[in-house]
Structure formats: structure tokens, C-alpha cells
């Protein structure tokens, strides 16, 4: 079902139609409300966070364009941390189960959310996925959001950390073009840096400047999933977050 192009209105369509009222003049009142429009989503997100905290699980949301290497990064991370940390993945995708199948092939539980044509995950979708994913004994739950640099930025999922990936082939001006997405991230990963010798238009310095200018204040790690110091730095960041989460839960 499409939630966003209007081909089917989802929950709204199920409501009883509002009966038209006669055009007589009633009493008119102006009521000040002042609530966040996504208040309902934010409340479910807080509920999800309570779930994660109750199980001492670090929840991490990965966001980026399609094809910037989210699933590949997860595969490499799972292999590197085998026997050290217990991981699971919630995969968001429009139509296929491909990504969840790739994760399961690495020996880690994965739940696929197929969003239809919806362009983002919201807190309710993550909550629904949690019904199929036991959190007991887990250290890290990754949520791989729908590949999209716009819509996912507006919806709190209840995770502890938001990551945004920027791959070298995309160009170093992506933060300037999609400021809301990059500003909201806690960590930025510049991926596919092994392609830098072939893509001379990409300047890591310009990408870093662009991130600073949109108000991003987190760490920036340059890496390739094939290993090396950047990949080790990413694993180090993750280990540090897990330790901090355990300390907070204790």
C-alpha cells in the first residue's frame, strides 16, 4: 500500500466519512494547540527506545542514497565482529527481500520491512518489525533505512544513533544538497574511498567542509568495507558505543 503518493490512503481511508454539515453559522473559536505534527511518531519512537534500553541493546539507524554501501558495510561489519558482538538487522526496502537475504547469509537475524512505495521508515514500522525480532541477548540492532537522502530524516525511529553514509561516487557536495539528512547524523561515513584515485572530482576536504557548513558536528570516518584503518576506526566507534550503552543500562 502506498502511503505517500495517494493511490491508497491507508488508515485515513478506513475512517468513517465525515457527514457534511449545513451551512448555517455556528460559533467560531480559534484554538491554540502548539504540538509537534509528528508527535504520534515521536511517542512510538520513545516507546521503541524503552524497548532497546530494557534489553541493553544499542540501536543504530543507517541512512544514505541508494547504492552508497549500507548493506555491504553491514556484511563486512558482521564478518569482522563474528564471535565478539551479537548483531541483528532490520532492513527497510521498497519492494525486495534481497538485503535481508544477504544479511541472513552472514548468519545474523534480519527482518525485512517492505514499505510498498513509502520512501522512509517510521517508528511504527520499526515497532512492528520488533515483534518478529527477539532482542534478548543482542548487543547491536542496525536499522537500514530506505535509500533516500530526504524523507527518512524527518522520522525519529527511537534509535540511539543515526549514521549517514556518503559514498565517493555520489560527489562531495551531497551534504550541501541534502542538509537536513546530514545535519541530523551522529556519525558520517565517507564510503568507497578505495575509488578516490579514479574519481578525482571528489575531494575529502570539500566533503568535510560541506558537512561542517550544514551543522554536522559528529565524527567523520573515511573507509572502505575492504578493511584498513578507516574500517578499524568504524569498528572502534561501534565498540565504544556498545560499551557506553552497557554502562548506561547497568
Amino acid at each position: 500500500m502506498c502511503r505517500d503518493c495517494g493511490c491508497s490512503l491507508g488508515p485515513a481511508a478506513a475512517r468513517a466519512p465525515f457527514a457534511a454539515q449545513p451551512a448555517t453559522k455556528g460559533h467560531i473559536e480559534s484554538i491554540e494547540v502548539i504540538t509537534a505534527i509528528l508527535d504520534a511518531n515521536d511517542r512510538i519512537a520513545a516507546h521503541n527506545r524503552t524497548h532497546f534500553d530494557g534489553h541493553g541493546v544499542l540501536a543504530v539507524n543507517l541512512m544514505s542514497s541508494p547504492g552508497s554501501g549500507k548493506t555491504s558495510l553491514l556484511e563486512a561489519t558482521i564478518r569482522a565482529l563474528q564471535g565478539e558482538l551479537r548483531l541483528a538487522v532490520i532492513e527497510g526496502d521498497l519492494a525486495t527481500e534481497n538485503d535481508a537475504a544477504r544479511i541472513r547469509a552472514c548468519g545474523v537475524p534480519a527482518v525485512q520491512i517492505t514499505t510498498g512505495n513509502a520512501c522512509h521508515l517510521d517508528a511504527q514500522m520499526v515497532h512492528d518489525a520488533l515483534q518478529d525480532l527477539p532482542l534478548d541477548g543482542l548487543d547491536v540492532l542496525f536499522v537500514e533505512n530506505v535509500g533516500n537522502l530526504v524523507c527518512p530524516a524527518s522520522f525519529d525511529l527511537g534509535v540511539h544513533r543515526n549514521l549517514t553514509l556518503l559514498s565517493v561516487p555520489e560527489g562531495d557536495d551531497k551534504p550541501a544538497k541534502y542538509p537536513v539528512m546530514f545535519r541530523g547524523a551522529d556519525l558520517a561515513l565517507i564510503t568507497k574511498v578505495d575509488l578516490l584515485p579514479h574519481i578525482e572530482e571528489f575531494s575529502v576536504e570539500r566533503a568535510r567542509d560541506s558537512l561542517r557548513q550544514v551543522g554536522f558536528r559528529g565524527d567523520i570516518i573515511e573507509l572502505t568495507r575492504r578493511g584498513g584503518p578507516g574500517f578499524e576506526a568504524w569498528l572502534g566507534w561501534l565498540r565504544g558505543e556498545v560499551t557506553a550503552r552497557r554502562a548506561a543500562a547497568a
Partner: protein
Amino acid sequence: MHELAVCQALIEQVERVARDNAARRILSITVSVGPLSGIEAKLLEHAYPLAAAGTVAEEARLVVVTVPVRVRCRSCRAETEAASNRLLCGSCNDWHVDVIAGEEMLLQRVEIETADEPVH
């Protein structure tokens, strides 16, 4: 285009206001939206009739107030407007700034019509 999902959340809130206040129709809905919320005012206006159809807000006017991004500089304390992809102090160009406006996505006000004049 996530604005329809946002509109649906908006309509649910407005329906609650209508119920709590025994409204028989909604005349107008005022929201304030900053560029850093990730919502485009124009797309919100396009999506709104789809979400409002068949609800108490079907005939309501949507008023979108766009709030410019404003930053306060930690170095020179100036408060200036900024572009959403250039959050720098407009006075001294420093990037050590705090955003003080432009992130909001708020339902501000609902104008309703109740059935009768209130009884005093």
C-alpha cells in the same frame, strides 16, 4: 515525498482537537514549518487535500507559516538568518553557531465551528 504521511499525522491531531471541542467543522489549520524540519511547504499544501478528504477538516484552509533559519553565534553572539546548507554566523562567518529557529514542524492553531452559540 513524505509530506502525505506528515499530513495524515496532522489530520489525526486536528480530528482530536475537533472531538475535544465538539467542533462540527474545521475552518482553518495553521502550521509552522522551518526548512530544517525536512518538510517542503509547497509539497505539504499539495498533499493536504488527499489527507483531509472525508474528514472533519475536509473544507479547512491550511495556512503554512514558513519560519526562516536563524542562528546565534557562540563567538560574537550575533543572531542572524542563515541558509539551511550554510549554518554560519552572518556577522563573523564562524561555524560555531546554535540554531534558534528553523527546525519546527508544529501544529499552531485550529479554527473551529461548533454547532451553537455557547451557553453562558
